[in-house]
Protein backbone atom coordinates (compact mmCIF):
# COMPACT_ATOMS: atom_id res chain seq x y z
CA UNK A 1 0.00 0.00 0.00
CA UNK A 2 2.74 2.41 0.93
CA UNK A 3 4.28 1.73 -2.46
CA UNK A 4 1.13 2.78 -4.25
CA UNK A 5 0.81 5.80 -2.02
CA UNK A 6 4.42 6.66 -2.69
CA UNK A 7 3.99 6.61 -6.40
CA UNK A 8 0.78 8.57 -6.27
CA UNK A 9 2.24 11.17 -4.02
CA UNK A 10 5.42 11.45 -6.06
CA UNK A 11 3.47 12.00 -9.21
CA UNK A 12 1.24 14.53 -7.56
CA UNK A 13 4.10 16.43 -5.99
CA UNK A 14 6.30 16.54 -9.05
CA UNK A 15 3.45 17.44 -11.32
CA UNK A 16 2.38 20.23 -9.07
CA UNK A 17 5.93 21.45 -8.79
CA UNK A 18 6.37 21.40 -12.53
CA UNK A 19 3.14 23.31 -12.90
CA UNK A 20 4.43 25.85 -10.45
CA UNK A 21 7.52 26.31 -12.49
CA UNK A 22 5.75 26.66 -15.77
CA UNK A 23 2.13 27.82 -15.53
CA UNK A 24 1.72 31.25 -16.99
CA UNK A 25 -1.11 32.24 -14.66
CA UNK A 26 0.65 33.29 -11.55
CA UNK A 27 -2.21 32.62 -9.21
CA UNK A 28 -2.61 29.12 -10.52
CA UNK A 29 1.05 28.56 -10.20
CA UNK A 30 0.95 29.69 -6.61
CA UNK A 31 -1.83 27.32 -5.78
CA UNK A 32 0.04 24.56 -7.49
CA UNK A 33 2.94 25.35 -5.22
CA UNK A 34 0.58 24.81 -2.32
CA UNK A 35 -0.37 21.52 -3.78
CA UNK A 36 3.23 20.52 -4.17
CA UNK A 37 3.87 21.35 -0.57
CA UNK A 38 0.88 19.31 0.44
CA UNK A 39 2.40 16.43 -1.45
CA UNK A 40 5.67 16.95 0.30
CA UNK A 41 3.89 16.92 3.63
CA UNK A 42 2.33 13.64 2.63
CA UNK A 43 5.82 12.34 1.96
CA UNK A 44 6.78 13.27 5.45
CA UNK A 45 3.74 11.47 6.82
CA UNK A 46 4.63 8.50 4.79
CA UNK A 47 8.16 8.52 6.12
CA UNK A 48 6.92 8.72 9.71
CA UNK A 49 7.75 12.33 10.39
CA UNK A 50 4.26 13.43 11.24
CA UNK A 51 5.28 16.42 13.18
CA UNK A 52 7.43 17.82 10.42
CA UNK A 53 4.62 17.24 7.98
CA UNK A 54 2.15 19.06 10.14
CA UNK A 55 4.58 21.86 10.73
CA UNK A 56 5.13 22.13 7.00
CA UNK A 57 1.42 22.35 6.35
CA UNK A 58 0.94 24.77 9.18
CA UNK A 59 3.71 27.10 8.20
CA UNK A 60 3.74 26.87 4.45
CA UNK A 61 0.10 26.51 3.64
CA UNK A 62 -1.18 28.51 6.57
CA UNK A 63 1.26 31.34 6.33
CA UNK A 64 3.79 31.40 3.52
CA UNK A 65 1.31 30.50 0.81
CA UNK A 66 -1.04 33.24 1.91
CA UNK A 67 1.85 35.65 1.94
CA UNK A 68 2.77 34.62 -1.57
CA UNK A 69 -0.69 35.05 -2.99
CA UNK A 70 -1.00 38.36 -1.20
CA UNK A 71 2.25 39.51 -2.68
CA UNK A 72 1.11 38.48 -6.11
CA UNK A 73 -2.05 40.42 -5.51
CA UNK A 74 -0.19 43.49 -4.33
CA UNK A 75 2.06 43.43 -7.36
CA UNK A 76 -0.88 42.81 -9.60
CA UNK A 77 0.35 44.98 -12.42
CA UNK A 78 1.93 41.95 -14.02
CA UNK A 79 0.05 38.95 -12.83
CA UNK A 80 0.66 37.28 -16.16
CA UNK A 81 4.12 35.97 -16.88
CA UNK A 82 6.30 37.82 -19.30
CA UNK A 83 6.81 35.85 -22.42
CA UNK A 84 9.87 34.07 -23.49
CA UNK A 85 11.53 31.03 -22.00
CA UNK A 86 14.91 31.31 -20.49
CA UNK A 87 16.40 28.30 -22.16
CA UNK A 88 19.72 28.54 -20.49
CA UNK A 89 17.93 28.15 -17.17
CA UNK A 90 16.16 25.06 -18.38
CA UNK A 91 19.41 23.67 -19.58
CA UNK A 92 21.19 24.27 -16.35
CA UNK A 93 18.32 22.81 -14.33
CA UNK A 94 18.25 19.74 -16.44
CA UNK A 95 21.99 19.33 -16.20
CA UNK A 96 21.81 19.59 -12.45
CA UNK A 97 19.01 17.02 -12.44
CA UNK A 98 21.05 14.60 -14.49
CA UNK A 99 24.06 15.16 -12.32
CA UNK A 100 22.10 14.50 -9.16
CA UNK A 101 20.43 11.38 -10.51
CA UNK A 102 23.77 10.12 -11.62
CA UNK A 103 25.21 10.75 -8.21
CA UNK A 104 22.35 9.05 -6.43
CA UNK A 105 22.43 6.00 -8.63
CA UNK A 106 26.18 5.76 -8.49
CA UNK A 107 26.29 5.70 -4.74
CA UNK A 108 26.09 2.10 -3.61
CA UNK A 109 25.72 2.49 0.12
CA UNK A 110 22.24 3.94 -0.22
CA UNK A 111 20.27 0.83 -1.01
CA UNK A 112 19.08 0.15 2.49
CA UNK A 113 15.74 -1.28 3.44
CA UNK A 114 13.89 0.92 5.88
CA UNK A 115 14.51 -0.30 9.42
CA UNK A 116 11.60 -0.78 11.70
CA UNK A 117 11.61 2.09 14.09
CA UNK A 118 9.31 3.30 16.80
CA UNK A 119 7.37 6.37 15.96
CA UNK A 120 8.91 9.65 16.99
CA UNK A 121 6.37 11.24 19.30
CA UNK A 122 5.77 14.93 19.68
CA UNK A 123 6.85 14.62 23.28
CA UNK A 124 10.24 13.28 22.25
CA UNK A 125 10.68 16.06 19.75
CA UNK A 126 9.72 18.60 22.35
CA UNK A 127 12.17 17.19 24.84
CA UNK A 128 14.96 17.11 22.31
CA UNK A 129 14.22 20.66 21.30
CA UNK A 130 14.29 21.82 24.87
CA UNK A 131 17.46 19.97 25.84
CA UNK A 132 19.98 19.40 23.08
CA UNK A 133 18.68 22.04 20.73
CA UNK A 134 17.85 24.84 23.10
CA UNK A 135 20.39 27.24 21.67
CA UNK A 136 19.45 26.67 18.07
CA UNK A 137 15.84 27.05 19.10
CA UNK A 138 16.51 30.37 20.76
CA UNK A 139 18.52 31.51 17.81
CA UNK A 140 15.73 30.60 15.44
CA UNK A 141 13.33 32.50 17.68
CA UNK A 142 15.58 35.52 17.49
CA UNK A 143 15.88 35.12 13.75
CA UNK A 144 12.14 34.98 13.35
CA UNK A 145 11.68 38.08 15.44
CA UNK A 146 14.28 39.88 13.43
CA UNK A 147 12.71 38.70 10.22
CA UNK A 148 9.32 39.85 11.41
CA UNK A 149 10.53 43.30 12.28
CA UNK A 150 12.64 43.49 9.17
CA UNK A 151 9.73 42.57 6.96
CA UNK A 152 7.55 45.14 8.66
CA UNK A 153 10.13 47.83 8.22
CA UNK A 154 10.62 46.94 4.58
CA UNK A 155 6.95 46.99 3.77
CA UNK A 156 5.91 49.97 5.84
CA UNK A 157 5.14 53.02 3.78
CA UNK A 158 7.75 55.66 4.00
CA UNK A 159 6.33 58.65 5.77
CA UNK A 160 6.55 61.77 3.77
Amino acid at each position, binding site marked *: MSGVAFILISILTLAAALATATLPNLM*HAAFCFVLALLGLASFFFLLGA*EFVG*LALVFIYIGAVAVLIVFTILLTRRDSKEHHGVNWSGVLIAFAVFVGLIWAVLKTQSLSIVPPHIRALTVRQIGQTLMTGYVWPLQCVGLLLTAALIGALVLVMEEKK
Partner: protein
Amino acid sequence: MSSALDQIFVHAKHWLLSWIAGAPGWVVQIVSSLINIVALLIVFLTLFALISVLERKILGRMQNRYGPNRVGPFGLFQPVADGIKMLIKEDIVPARADKVLHFLAPVILAAVAILTLGVIPYGRNMTAFRIDGGILFFFAVGSATELAVFMAGWASNNKFSMLGAMRAIAQMFSYELPLIITVLPAVMVVGSLMPDRIVFAQGEYTLGIVPRWFVFTPWGAAAFILFFVSGLVESNRTPFDVPEGESEIVAGHMTEYSGFKYATFFLAEYLGMFAVSGMAVTLFLGGWHAPARVLEFVPSYLWFFGKLSALLFVYIWLRATLPRTRVDQMMNVAWKFMLPMAFTCVIAAAVWHYGGRGLRGWLWSLLVIVVVYSALSILLDTRRKFARRVYRFAE
Protein backbone atom coordinates in the same frame (compact mmCIF):
# COMPACT_ATOMS: atom_id res chain seq x y z
CA MET B 1 -25.28 -0.34 32.35
CA SER B 2 -24.10 3.16 32.18
CA SER B 3 -20.78 2.01 30.81
CA ALA B 4 -22.55 0.10 28.09
CA LEU B 5 -24.60 3.13 27.22
CA ASP B 6 -21.50 5.20 27.27
CA GLN B 7 -19.67 2.95 24.85
CA ILE B 8 -22.64 2.12 22.66
CA PHE B 9 -21.28 3.80 19.55
CA VAL B 10 -17.86 2.27 20.02
CA HIS B 11 -19.41 -1.15 20.28
CA ALA B 12 -21.52 -0.46 17.24
CA LYS B 13 -18.43 0.35 15.20
CA HIS B 14 -16.67 -2.75 16.36
CA TRP B 15 -19.72 -4.75 15.44
CA LEU B 16 -19.69 -3.28 11.98
CA LEU B 17 -15.99 -3.99 11.58
CA SER B 18 -16.46 -7.57 12.65
CA TRP B 19 -18.25 -8.09 9.33
CA ILE B 20 -15.00 -7.71 7.45
CA ALA B 21 -12.78 -9.34 9.99
CA GLY B 22 -10.99 -11.49 7.41
CA ALA B 23 -9.99 -8.76 5.02
CA PRO B 24 -6.35 -7.49 4.75
CA GLY B 25 -5.23 -4.96 7.28
CA TRP B 26 -5.31 -1.91 4.98
CA VAL B 27 -8.85 -2.72 3.95
CA VAL B 28 -9.95 -2.81 7.59
CA GLN B 29 -8.18 0.44 8.14
CA ILE B 30 -9.88 2.13 5.25
CA VAL B 31 -13.28 0.80 6.25
CA SER B 32 -12.75 1.92 9.81
CA SER B 33 -11.88 5.38 8.62
CA LEU B 34 -14.86 5.44 6.32
CA ILE B 35 -17.15 4.50 9.18
CA ASN B 36 -15.75 7.33 11.22
CA ILE B 37 -16.14 9.77 8.38
CA VAL B 38 -19.65 8.76 7.64
CA ALA B 39 -20.59 8.98 11.32
CA LEU B 40 -19.04 12.44 11.56
CA LEU B 41 -20.82 13.61 8.46
CA ILE B 42 -24.16 12.30 9.60
CA VAL B 43 -23.87 13.79 13.04
CA PHE B 44 -22.60 17.18 12.02
CA LEU B 45 -24.73 17.64 8.97
CA THR B 46 -27.74 16.92 11.14
CA LEU B 47 -26.42 19.27 13.76
CA PHE B 48 -25.91 21.87 11.04
CA ALA B 49 -29.48 21.55 9.90
CA LEU B 50 -30.73 21.67 13.44
CA ILE B 51 -28.62 24.64 14.42
CA SER B 52 -29.51 26.59 11.31
CA VAL B 53 -33.14 26.44 12.18
CA LEU B 54 -32.60 26.78 15.88
CA GLU B 55 -30.51 29.85 15.34
CA ARG B 56 -33.25 31.52 13.43
CA LYS B 57 -35.76 30.55 16.05
CA ILE B 58 -33.59 31.73 18.92
CA LEU B 59 -32.83 34.95 17.14
CA GLY B 60 -36.50 35.36 16.60
CA ARG B 61 -37.25 34.83 20.22
CA MET B 62 -34.60 37.31 21.23
CA GLN B 63 -35.94 39.86 18.81
CA ASN B 64 -39.51 39.33 19.90
CA ARG B 65 -40.77 37.42 16.86
CA TYR B 66 -41.46 33.82 16.02
CA GLY B 67 -38.83 32.76 13.52
CA PRO B 68 -39.52 29.92 11.09
CA ASN B 69 -42.57 28.00 12.17
CA ARG B 70 -44.30 26.95 8.95
CA VAL B 71 -42.47 23.89 7.60
CA GLY B 72 -43.04 20.81 9.70
CA PRO B 73 -43.60 20.69 13.46
CA PHE B 74 -42.38 23.96 14.96
CA GLY B 75 -40.79 24.72 11.62
CA LEU B 76 -38.18 22.04 12.16
CA PHE B 77 -38.15 20.98 8.52
CA GLN B 78 -37.15 24.42 7.40
CA PRO B 79 -33.56 23.32 6.60
CA VAL B 80 -34.87 20.66 4.28
CA ALA B 81 -36.83 23.24 2.42
CA ASP B 82 -33.87 25.55 2.35
CA GLY B 83 -31.64 22.76 1.09
CA ILE B 84 -34.00 21.97 -1.75
CA LYS B 85 -34.18 25.63 -2.63
CA MET B 86 -30.42 25.95 -2.70
CA LEU B 87 -30.01 22.80 -4.82
CA ILE B 88 -32.38 23.84 -7.49
CA LYS B 89 -31.15 27.40 -7.81
CA GLU B 90 -29.07 28.30 -10.81
CA ASP B 91 -25.35 28.01 -10.26
CA ILE B 92 -24.01 31.28 -11.62
CA VAL B 93 -20.33 31.65 -12.39
CA PRO B 94 -19.16 35.10 -13.51
CA ALA B 95 -17.84 35.18 -17.03
CA ARG B 96 -14.39 36.49 -16.14
CA ALA B 97 -14.05 34.36 -13.07
CA ASP B 98 -11.37 31.77 -12.67
CA LYS B 99 -13.63 28.78 -13.05
CA VAL B 100 -11.48 26.17 -11.40
CA LEU B 101 -10.63 28.12 -8.31
CA HIS B 102 -14.14 29.45 -8.11
CA PHE B 103 -15.34 25.92 -7.87
CA LEU B 104 -12.59 24.68 -5.59
CA ALA B 105 -12.91 27.37 -2.93
CA PRO B 106 -16.12 26.24 -1.20
CA VAL B 107 -15.13 22.63 -1.55
CA ILE B 108 -11.82 23.15 0.16
CA LEU B 109 -13.45 25.21 2.82
CA ALA B 110 -15.96 22.53 3.68
CA ALA B 111 -13.36 19.79 3.46
CA VAL B 112 -11.08 21.60 5.81
CA ALA B 113 -13.87 22.13 8.29
CA ILE B 114 -14.76 18.49 8.28
CA LEU B 115 -11.12 17.47 8.61
CA THR B 116 -10.70 19.58 11.68
CA LEU B 117 -13.69 17.94 13.28
CA GLY B 118 -11.92 14.62 13.03
CA VAL B 119 -9.46 15.07 15.89
CA ILE B 120 -11.91 16.13 18.57
CA PRO B 121 -12.83 13.49 21.16
CA TYR B 122 -16.58 13.35 21.33
CA GLY B 123 -16.80 10.84 24.11
CA ARG B 124 -14.82 8.21 25.87
CA ASN B 125 -12.93 6.31 23.13
CA MET B 126 -14.72 8.34 20.52
CA THR B 127 -12.07 10.13 18.53
CA ALA B 128 -12.20 9.81 14.78
CA PHE B 129 -8.45 10.19 14.15
CA ARG B 130 -6.13 9.67 17.02
CA ILE B 131 -3.03 11.55 15.93
CA ASP B 132 -0.12 12.23 18.16
CA GLY B 133 -0.12 15.91 17.23
CA GLY B 134 -3.89 16.26 17.09
CA ILE B 135 -3.97 19.84 18.21
CA LEU B 136 -1.32 20.74 15.67
CA PHE B 137 -3.30 18.95 13.03
CA PHE B 138 -6.38 20.90 13.98
CA PHE B 139 -4.70 24.21 13.51
CA ALA B 140 -2.53 23.20 10.58
CA VAL B 141 -5.50 22.05 8.58
CA GLY B 142 -7.61 24.89 9.86
CA SER B 143 -5.14 27.40 8.53
CA ALA B 144 -5.96 26.29 5.00
CA THR B 145 -9.28 28.11 5.46
CA GLU B 146 -7.61 31.38 4.72
CA LEU B 147 -6.29 30.09 1.45
CA ALA B 148 -9.73 28.90 0.49
CA VAL B 149 -11.26 32.23 1.35
CA PHE B 150 -8.64 33.94 -0.73
CA MET B 151 -9.34 31.62 -3.60
CA ALA B 152 -13.01 32.49 -3.41
CA GLY B 153 -12.29 36.19 -3.31
CA TRP B 154 -9.76 36.17 -6.08
CA ALA B 155 -11.47 33.75 -8.36
CA SER B 156 -14.69 35.73 -8.31
CA ASN B 157 -12.92 38.60 -10.03
CA ASN B 158 -15.05 41.10 -8.16
CA LYS B 159 -13.75 43.92 -6.09
CA PHE B 160 -16.19 43.28 -3.25
CA SER B 161 -15.16 39.68 -3.16
CA MET B 162 -11.54 40.62 -3.13
CA LEU B 163 -11.97 43.19 -0.41
CA GLY B 164 -14.01 40.80 1.66
CA ALA B 165 -11.41 38.12 1.28
CA MET B 166 -8.67 40.52 2.26
CA ARG B 167 -10.52 41.58 5.34
CA ALA B 168 -11.29 38.00 6.25
CA ILE B 169 -7.69 36.95 5.88
CA ALA B 170 -6.42 39.91 7.81
CA GLN B 171 -8.66 39.26 10.73
CA MET B 172 -8.19 35.52 10.67
CA PHE B 173 -4.45 35.93 10.61
CA SER B 174 -4.53 38.38 13.47
CA TYR B 175 -6.69 36.26 15.65
CA GLU B 176 -5.04 33.01 14.77
CA LEU B 177 -2.09 34.06 16.92
CA PRO B 178 -4.02 34.47 20.18
CA LEU B 179 -6.07 31.43 19.24
CA ILE B 180 -3.04 29.22 19.02
CA ILE B 181 -1.13 30.78 21.86
CA THR B 182 -4.03 30.37 24.24
CA VAL B 183 -3.92 26.68 23.49
CA LEU B 184 -0.32 26.54 24.63
CA PRO B 185 -0.96 26.70 28.38
CA ALA B 186 -3.24 23.70 28.25
CA VAL B 187 -0.76 21.82 26.11
CA MET B 188 2.09 22.79 28.40
CA VAL B 189 0.29 21.75 31.51
CA VAL B 190 -0.74 18.41 30.10
CA GLY B 191 2.47 17.83 28.23
CA SER B 192 0.83 16.49 25.13
CA LEU B 193 -0.58 17.67 21.82
CA MET B 194 -3.14 14.90 21.81
CA PRO B 195 -6.70 16.07 22.50
CA ASP B 196 -7.57 12.81 24.24
CA ARG B 197 -4.78 13.29 26.74
CA ILE B 198 -5.85 16.84 27.40
CA VAL B 199 -9.40 15.72 28.05
CA PHE B 200 -8.14 12.93 30.20
CA ALA B 201 -6.04 15.32 32.27
CA GLN B 202 -9.16 17.24 33.22
CA GLY B 203 -10.95 14.16 34.50
CA GLU B 204 -10.31 14.58 38.24
CA TYR B 205 -12.46 16.33 40.76
CA THR B 206 -11.56 18.42 43.72
CA LEU B 207 -13.67 17.27 46.68
CA GLY B 208 -15.72 15.26 44.22
CA ILE B 209 -17.77 18.15 43.03
CA VAL B 210 -15.49 20.73 41.51
CA PRO B 211 -14.12 19.37 38.25
CA ARG B 212 -10.53 20.10 37.44
CA TRP B 213 -11.33 21.64 34.16
CA PHE B 214 -8.81 24.17 33.00
CA VAL B 215 -11.43 26.82 32.81
CA PHE B 216 -11.46 26.86 36.57
CA THR B 217 -7.86 27.99 36.83
CA PRO B 218 -7.09 31.67 36.35
CA TRP B 219 -4.99 31.10 33.29
CA GLY B 220 -7.54 28.67 31.95
CA ALA B 221 -10.38 31.10 32.41
CA ALA B 222 -8.48 33.88 30.73
CA ALA B 223 -7.30 31.59 27.96
CA PHE B 224 -10.80 30.26 27.46
CA ILE B 225 -12.24 33.73 27.03
CA LEU B 226 -9.47 34.68 24.63
CA PHE B 227 -9.87 31.44 22.75
CA PHE B 228 -13.59 31.87 22.51
CA VAL B 229 -13.33 35.41 21.19
CA SER B 230 -10.68 34.39 18.72
CA GLY B 231 -12.85 31.50 17.69
CA LEU B 232 -15.68 33.93 17.02
CA VAL B 233 -13.39 35.84 14.73
CA GLU B 234 -12.06 32.73 13.02
CA SER B 235 -15.53 31.57 12.15
CA ASN B 236 -16.52 35.08 11.00
CA ARG B 237 -19.42 35.24 13.37
CA THR B 238 -21.11 38.34 14.70
CA PRO B 239 -19.84 40.63 16.11
CA PHE B 240 -16.81 39.96 13.97
CA ASP B 241 -18.51 39.31 10.65
CA VAL B 242 -16.73 42.21 9.08
CA PRO B 243 -15.68 40.26 5.93
CA GLU B 244 -19.25 39.79 4.91
CA GLY B 245 -20.53 43.11 6.19
CA GLU B 246 -23.44 43.44 3.80
CA SER B 247 -23.82 47.14 4.29
CA GLU B 248 -20.29 47.75 3.08
CA ILE B 249 -19.12 45.06 0.74
CA VAL B 250 -22.29 43.17 -0.22
CA ALA B 251 -21.35 39.73 1.08
CA GLY B 252 -17.60 39.70 1.03
CA HIS B 253 -15.93 36.81 -0.65
CA MET B 254 -19.29 35.07 -1.12
CA THR B 255 -20.72 37.80 -3.29
CA GLU B 256 -20.40 35.91 -6.55
CA TYR B 257 -21.62 32.61 -5.19
CA SER B 258 -25.10 31.23 -5.48
CA GLY B 259 -27.01 28.04 -5.15
CA PHE B 260 -25.32 25.05 -3.73
CA LYS B 261 -21.87 26.61 -3.62
CA TYR B 262 -23.25 29.30 -1.45
CA ALA B 263 -24.85 26.67 0.75
CA THR B 264 -21.47 25.01 1.02
CA PHE B 265 -19.96 28.19 2.33
CA PHE B 266 -22.76 28.36 4.80
CA LEU B 267 -22.12 24.79 5.81
CA ALA B 268 -18.41 25.40 6.15
CA GLU B 269 -19.02 28.36 8.42
CA TYR B 270 -21.15 26.33 10.74
CA LEU B 271 -18.82 23.38 10.70
CA GLY B 272 -15.97 25.69 11.54
CA MET B 273 -17.99 27.03 14.40
CA PHE B 274 -18.59 23.51 15.64
CA ALA B 275 -14.94 22.70 15.35
CA VAL B 276 -13.75 25.72 17.29
CA SER B 277 -16.39 25.23 19.96
CA GLY B 278 -15.56 21.57 20.16
CA MET B 279 -11.89 22.42 20.59
CA ALA B 280 -12.77 24.93 23.29
CA VAL B 281 -14.77 22.29 25.09
CA THR B 282 -11.92 19.85 24.75
CA LEU B 283 -9.24 22.21 25.92
CA PHE B 284 -10.90 24.08 28.71
CA LEU B 285 -14.28 22.68 29.56
CA GLY B 286 -13.15 19.17 30.36
CA GLY B 287 -14.20 17.60 27.06
CA TRP B 288 -16.65 14.83 27.60
CA HIS B 289 -16.18 14.75 31.36
CA ALA B 290 -19.14 15.23 33.64
CA PRO B 291 -19.18 18.36 35.78
CA ALA B 292 -19.40 16.28 38.97
CA ARG B 293 -18.52 12.74 39.92
CA VAL B 294 -22.09 11.89 40.73
CA LEU B 295 -23.14 12.84 37.23
CA GLU B 296 -20.78 10.44 35.55
CA PHE B 297 -23.52 7.96 34.85
CA VAL B 298 -24.71 10.15 32.02
CA PRO B 299 -22.98 9.04 28.79
CA SER B 300 -19.87 11.05 28.01
CA TYR B 301 -20.89 12.10 24.48
CA LEU B 302 -24.01 13.63 25.89
CA TRP B 303 -21.87 15.82 28.11
CA PHE B 304 -19.76 16.80 25.17
CA PHE B 305 -22.68 17.72 23.00
CA GLY B 306 -24.32 19.45 25.94
CA LYS B 307 -21.32 21.68 26.40
CA LEU B 308 -21.05 22.18 22.66
CA SER B 309 -24.69 23.21 22.51
CA ALA B 310 -24.18 25.63 25.35
CA LEU B 311 -21.31 27.28 23.52
CA LEU B 312 -23.29 27.36 20.29
CA PHE B 313 -26.09 29.00 22.15
CA VAL B 314 -23.66 31.67 23.30
CA TYR B 315 -22.64 32.19 19.68
CA ILE B 316 -26.22 32.76 18.67
CA TRP B 317 -26.89 34.88 21.68
CA LEU B 318 -23.96 37.13 20.87
CA ARG B 319 -25.18 37.44 17.34
CA ALA B 320 -28.50 38.63 18.60
CA THR B 321 -26.98 41.06 21.03
CA LEU B 322 -23.89 42.73 19.68
CA PRO B 323 -23.40 45.08 16.74
CA ARG B 324 -20.66 44.59 14.22
CA THR B 325 -17.26 45.91 15.26
CA ARG B 326 -15.19 48.31 13.26
CA VAL B 327 -12.35 46.66 11.46
CA ASP B 328 -9.53 48.84 12.80
CA GLN B 329 -10.70 48.53 16.38
CA MET B 330 -10.81 44.81 15.93
CA MET B 331 -7.25 44.73 14.69
CA ASN B 332 -6.09 46.96 17.49
CA VAL B 333 -7.59 44.68 20.06
CA ALA B 334 -5.99 41.66 18.48
CA TRP B 335 -2.47 42.97 18.47
CA LYS B 336 -2.45 45.21 21.46
CA PHE B 337 -4.61 43.32 23.88
CA MET B 338 -5.33 39.76 22.86
CA LEU B 339 -1.78 38.84 21.98
CA PRO B 340 -0.14 40.12 25.18
CA MET B 341 -2.90 38.58 27.22
CA ALA B 342 -2.41 35.27 25.48
CA PHE B 343 1.27 35.34 26.32
CA THR B 344 0.36 36.23 29.85
CA CYS B 345 -1.77 33.10 30.01
CA VAL B 346 1.27 31.06 29.12
CA ILE B 347 3.26 32.72 31.89
CA ALA B 348 0.39 32.38 34.32
CA ALA B 349 0.14 28.68 33.54
CA ALA B 350 3.83 28.31 34.24
CA VAL B 351 3.39 30.17 37.49
CA TRP B 352 0.48 27.92 38.34
CA HIS B 353 2.56 24.88 37.58
CA TYR B 354 5.56 25.94 39.60
CA GLY B 355 3.34 27.18 42.37
CA GLY B 356 2.42 23.57 43.01
CA ARG B 357 -0.81 23.44 41.05
CA GLY B 358 -2.61 24.11 44.30
CA LEU B 359 -4.24 27.09 45.87
CA ARG B 360 -0.92 28.93 46.05
CA GLY B 361 -0.27 28.58 42.34
CA TRP B 362 -3.85 29.50 41.70
CA LEU B 363 -3.52 32.77 43.54
CA TRP B 364 -0.14 33.61 42.04
CA SER B 365 -1.32 33.02 38.53
CA LEU B 366 -4.40 35.10 39.28
CA LEU B 367 -2.08 37.85 40.40
CA VAL B 368 -0.07 37.64 37.18
CA ILE B 369 -3.15 37.89 35.06
CA VAL B 370 -4.68 40.71 37.05
CA VAL B 371 -1.47 42.71 37.02
CA VAL B 372 -0.97 42.36 33.28
CA TYR B 373 -4.61 43.00 32.61
CA SER B 374 -4.57 46.16 34.68
CA ALA B 375 -1.37 47.34 33.10
CA LEU B 376 -2.74 46.74 29.64
CA SER B 377 -5.95 48.50 30.52
CA ILE B 378 -4.05 51.53 31.71
CA LEU B 379 -1.69 51.60 28.79
CA LEU B 380 -4.36 51.06 26.18
CA ASP B 381 -6.73 53.53 27.68
CA THR B 382 -6.64 56.41 25.27
CA ARG B 383 -9.12 58.37 27.34
CA ARG B 384 -11.17 58.76 24.26
CA LYS B 385 -14.35 56.98 23.75
CA PHE B 386 -13.20 55.57 20.46
CA ALA B 387 -9.81 55.26 19.01
CA ARG B 388 -9.04 57.37 16.01
CA ARG B 389 -10.14 55.62 12.88
CA VAL B 390 -7.24 54.24 10.95
CA TYR B 391 -7.44 52.47 7.64
CA ARG B 392 -4.12 50.77 7.78
CA PHE B 393 -5.59 47.32 8.19
CA ALA B 394 -8.23 47.68 5.58
CA GLU B 395 -5.96 48.82 2.83
